[in-house]
């Protein structure tokens, strides 16, 4: 360990592994350490199942849960948008070669106590039970407008200025009611709160387009999920980093980030100090450089049946828009199963999560838990969310944000690209990944 590196990356969560891969690909000498014996940090998938029970002091697994090794349980529920930034990163870095994905079968939204399939194209809009007859037609016109909308071509704007017109004004223009606005903003544009309504509509229209384009890629839903769980993602990027020369040390406690004159010079583990010019880490490695910005509650539920009213989908997302249940933040339900090699035969893992708003977070997710049918085992966690106190430009310590309550990885990728830009002063150059040398011969 007593060597000099361009960068030391601490923690092997997804954010740090992508950054490590990008740095190695860019020719930096990287040391990547984790205090744990396993890859993934907070974005690990826990296996065997006995380890999850031990983590939550939950006794022992039931005989009908099969072999513990057949389970890989994510701690943080997320899906990949098929046309989103993470998929772009996976493809351009060649990391897709190590992974296999399945399309998530169902995308649902909650309205007045019931769940409905999210209608994303004009055909589905007309068949949807979410809206009355006239509202369907108005929504269809709105979808066609979004599909044809091009931010760079004012002819497609139809009197909507993406930089000036608010989203609320767009809803009014198309005569959409509150319920339709709720699922459009939350289940298609994937906003977690209603703040977007009074803001210019451009970004929201772009998000709806991304949903439509993601859906168009693989059909059933716009979401993808990797076989063996989300914990495969950090491992894939770690392998990329290693292939480009990154050095990996797990089970390596980091006692201190060492500074000279306010700038980082190394990382100490025991009596060893590895020297470096920069440190990239998750909040747990730099507790005095982050501040708490909120809390997320996540409830992992093991169930032995599909979620009711989802057409027996083997994988699902359900969004409960905040307005429908008198909240400020949406509640998300994700469900994966045997088909993704994450649970024993006949079992499903459902996760209910949201941003905490009250002193009794478990009561906040009750409406979500009630949609699941009988639950065989629950594991509840309330986690603090942290963000760095500064940009790291002086200290050269770049701290990532905690994984938020959103149901996909878009905000994680924004953080990755932003940190890379702050750390290296440049945008990541995808052309540095040479597919002909990376790949299969």
């Amino acid at each position: 360990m007593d060597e000099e590196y361009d960068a030391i990356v601490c923690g092997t969560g997804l954010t740090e592994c992508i950054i490590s891969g990008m740095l190695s690909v860019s020719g930096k000498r990287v040391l990547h350490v984790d205090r744990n014996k396993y890859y993934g940090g907070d974005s690990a998938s826990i296996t065997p199942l006995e380890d999850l029970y031990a983590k939550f002091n939950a006794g022992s697994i039931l005989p009908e849960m099969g072999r513990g090794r057949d389970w890989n349980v994510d701690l943080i529920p997320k899906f990949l948008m098929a046309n989103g930034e993470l998929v772009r990163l996976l493809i351009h870095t060649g990391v897709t070669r190590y992974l296999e994905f399945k399309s998530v079968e169902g995308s649902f939204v909650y309205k007045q106590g019931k769940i409905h399939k999210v209608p994303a194209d004009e055909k589905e809009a007309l068949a949807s039970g979410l809206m009355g007859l006239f509202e369907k037609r108005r929504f269809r016109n709105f979808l066609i407008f979004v599909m044809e909308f091009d931010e760079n071509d004012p002819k497609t704007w139809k009197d909507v200025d993406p930089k000036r017109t608010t989203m609320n004004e767009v809803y009014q223009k198309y005569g959409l009611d509150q319920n339709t606005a709720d699922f459009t903003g939350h289940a298609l544009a994937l906003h977690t709160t209603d703040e977007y309504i009074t803001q210019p509509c451009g970004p929201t229209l772009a998000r709806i387009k991304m949903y439509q384009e993601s859906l168009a890629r693989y059909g059933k839903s716009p979401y993808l999920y990797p076989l063996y769980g989300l914990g495969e993602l950090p491992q894939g990027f770690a392998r990329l980093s290693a292939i480009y020369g990154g050095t990996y040390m797990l089970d390596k406690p980091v006692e201190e980030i060492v500074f000279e004159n306010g700038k980082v010079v190394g990382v100490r583990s025991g009596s060893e100090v590895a020297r470096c010019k920069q440190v990239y880490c998750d909040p747990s490695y730099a507790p005095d450089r982050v501040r708490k910005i909120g809390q997320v509650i996540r409830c992992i539920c093991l169930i032995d049946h599909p979620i009711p009213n989802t057409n027996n989908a083997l994988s699902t997302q359900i969004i409960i828009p905040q307005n429908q249940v008198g909240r400020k933040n949406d509640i998300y339900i994700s469900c994966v199963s045997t088909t993704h090699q994450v649970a024993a035969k006949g079992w499903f893992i459902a996760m209910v999560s949201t941003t905490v708003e009250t002193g009794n977070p478990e009561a906040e997710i009750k409406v979500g838990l009630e949609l699941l049918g009988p639950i065989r085992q629950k594991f509840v966690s309330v986690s603090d969310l942290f963000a760095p106190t500064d940009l790291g430009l002086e200290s050269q310590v770049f701290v990532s944000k905690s994984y938020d309550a959103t149901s996909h990885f878009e905000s994680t990728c924004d953080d990755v690209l932003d940190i890379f830009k702050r750390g290296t002063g440049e945008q990541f150059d995808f052309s540095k990944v040479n597919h002909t040398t990376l790949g299969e011969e």
Partner: protein
Amino acid sequence: MATAARTSTGGGGAVPSAGKIFQFKLVLLGEAAVGKSSLVLRFVKGHFHDYQESTIGAAFLTQTVCLDETTVKFEIWDTAGQERYHSLAPMYYRGAQAAIIVYDITNHESFNKAKAWVRELQRQANPNIVISLAGNKADLANKRMVEYEEAQSYAEEQGLLFMETSAKTAMNVNDIFLAIAKKLPKTDPAGSRNPGQTVNVNTAAQNVEAKSSCCGGSTGATPANAAPTRT
């Protein structure tokens, strides 16, 4: 028997009409510097360098072996140096149907490490994995520290295939891959390593890549040893 290892031309295009193609993931394990990458480069490319860089620099290499009735395509994964500090990811073993555990016959400690890797695989990997043990650097027999008989009796005890090999002289290199190819069960046709339908993220993205990248679409044009090297 009319069997031979031969070079593939990528994408499985040059496969004889007779017989089915079976694809298998094969992982290499063993202590650093025992010659894991050299063995693969000898097998896949037919060459050897005295001072091979310490990483192979490729995601994985493929090579095809023709048996009498069938064709076996190996997808060979190198450790990319992650074994050095015991930091190999579980993903590495995931779905592997074959493994070659390599030690250096001039280094007894590397043989002890090989035994530890065997135990690790028996614990972590697919229970039906075909494991073979390769005592590499057999050309350096005058510096031998691991007796052939010692390794052979260990391999027998554990049910492993065993050969001494030399990436330098090519001794037994093709043979060990061929022996593995013969031992692997030929029940699943190529591409069915996982049950159920998965989506091909790469295929769906090809249009996007062709537009945005000037170097895309020429897989196989550059030799693997031109890959980035450890600095």
